[in-house]
């Protein structure tokens, strides 16, 4: 089937910043994103798990955003403005999408 080049951006960020990040992405006119729950992880600040947690502190979420290549920099800048001072991982992968008109 015919596919089109795009970028898959995955931002793993602290849960208390979720709204700030999605607001920033939306403000940057990004066409869409999807938020995946995260159960736990480990990094320089140690091991964590969502099990039994009530507070959003001490949790992360993963925001996945598929975007046209030419819009990548706008998105990264928007994301970076939020992630900058905070814990978080931003990765970008090349991908192909069906139905490019949607992006």
């Amino acid at each position: 089937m015919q596919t089109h080049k795009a970028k898959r951006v995955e931002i793993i960020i602290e849960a208390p910043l979720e709204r700030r990040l999605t607001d920033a992405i939306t403000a940057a006119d990004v066409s869409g994103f999807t938020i995946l729950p995260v159960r736990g992880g480990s990094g320089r600040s140690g091991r964590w798990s969502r099990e039994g947690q009530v507070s959003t502190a001490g949790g992360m979420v993963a925001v996945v955003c598929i975007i046209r290549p030419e819009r990548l920099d706008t998105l990264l800048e928007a994301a970076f403005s939020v992630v900058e001072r905070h814990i978080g991982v931003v990765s970008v992968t090349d991908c192909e999408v069906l139905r490019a008109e949607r992006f």
Partner: protein
Amino acid sequence: MDAILSVMAQNLVSPIILSFALGLLAAVARSSLSVPEAAAKALSIYLLFAIGFKGGASVAAHGLDWTLGFALIAGLALSLVIPVIAFALLRGLTRLSAVDAAAVAGHYGSISIVTFVSATAILTSRAIGHEGYMVAVAAAMEAPAIVAALWLAARSGTGVKMDWELWREVLLNGSIVLLVGAFVIGAITGERGLAEIESFIVSPFKGVLCLFLLDMGLVAGRGLKQARGVLSGGAVVFAVLMPLVGAALALPVGMVLGLSAGGVALFMTLAASASYIAVPAAMRVALPEANPSIYLTLSLGVTFPFNLALGIPLYVTVAERLSGG
């Protein structure tokens, strides 16, 4: 003294405390025991709804007086003052950076609603009455300490962004809204409303609290294991001392306000308790430089069990002696 010790001993063998201890031990022993996140949140929604509703219904039954207004103001004031004292103590007792100390201080100015709930459970089982509006005071004391903490951090040169969005998040965080909302519903529907849902929010309350404390023990235990090494002896001393300082501040205030013995005990408990839900989330946003292991471990891993096991019975006994007697 004997009375205090006997109250404490009795408290130590309550299902509530032992459930917390079980969770703590299980986590430290790396058992796979765990409560799903959704279940823990559901339990906390139940507890906030029940405690708020019961407070409101009790206000509807006994009426309001000026004391509520004064108690709210006193609570606000305390939660602004306590962080300053906590900050000074921390700088004396530990080598924490100013930012870390400010973040920890903010937690101690705010309150832990489960500590409050546990105190009301003890009051109920000892048949000591208290003002229903203490729930509103608890809600009022959740947020102000965050401002104090950010001010302390800013004074030490850490750029802090206290934007409007953060204000909204802090003031309208889920636990405040649910607690205050349920309080208002209880106050509006009164004894009749309470009668309708009594067998949901009153009778099973203590059992639900046990499961929630089991979960808190698990989370605290995991945190303690994780934070070994981060915590100095001085910090632990602070986490045991600070609740006593807070309670000691609240005691005369509560007595001057003319609260009942139970009310004074709850006021002391609020001042003595440290937040571990709302304030940590706010600190991650506003003071990301502060190390979360430190404030979470001190608050949930040291101060919470201290209050649960020793603090509350102490505050209750002292309040009964001095004010209600």
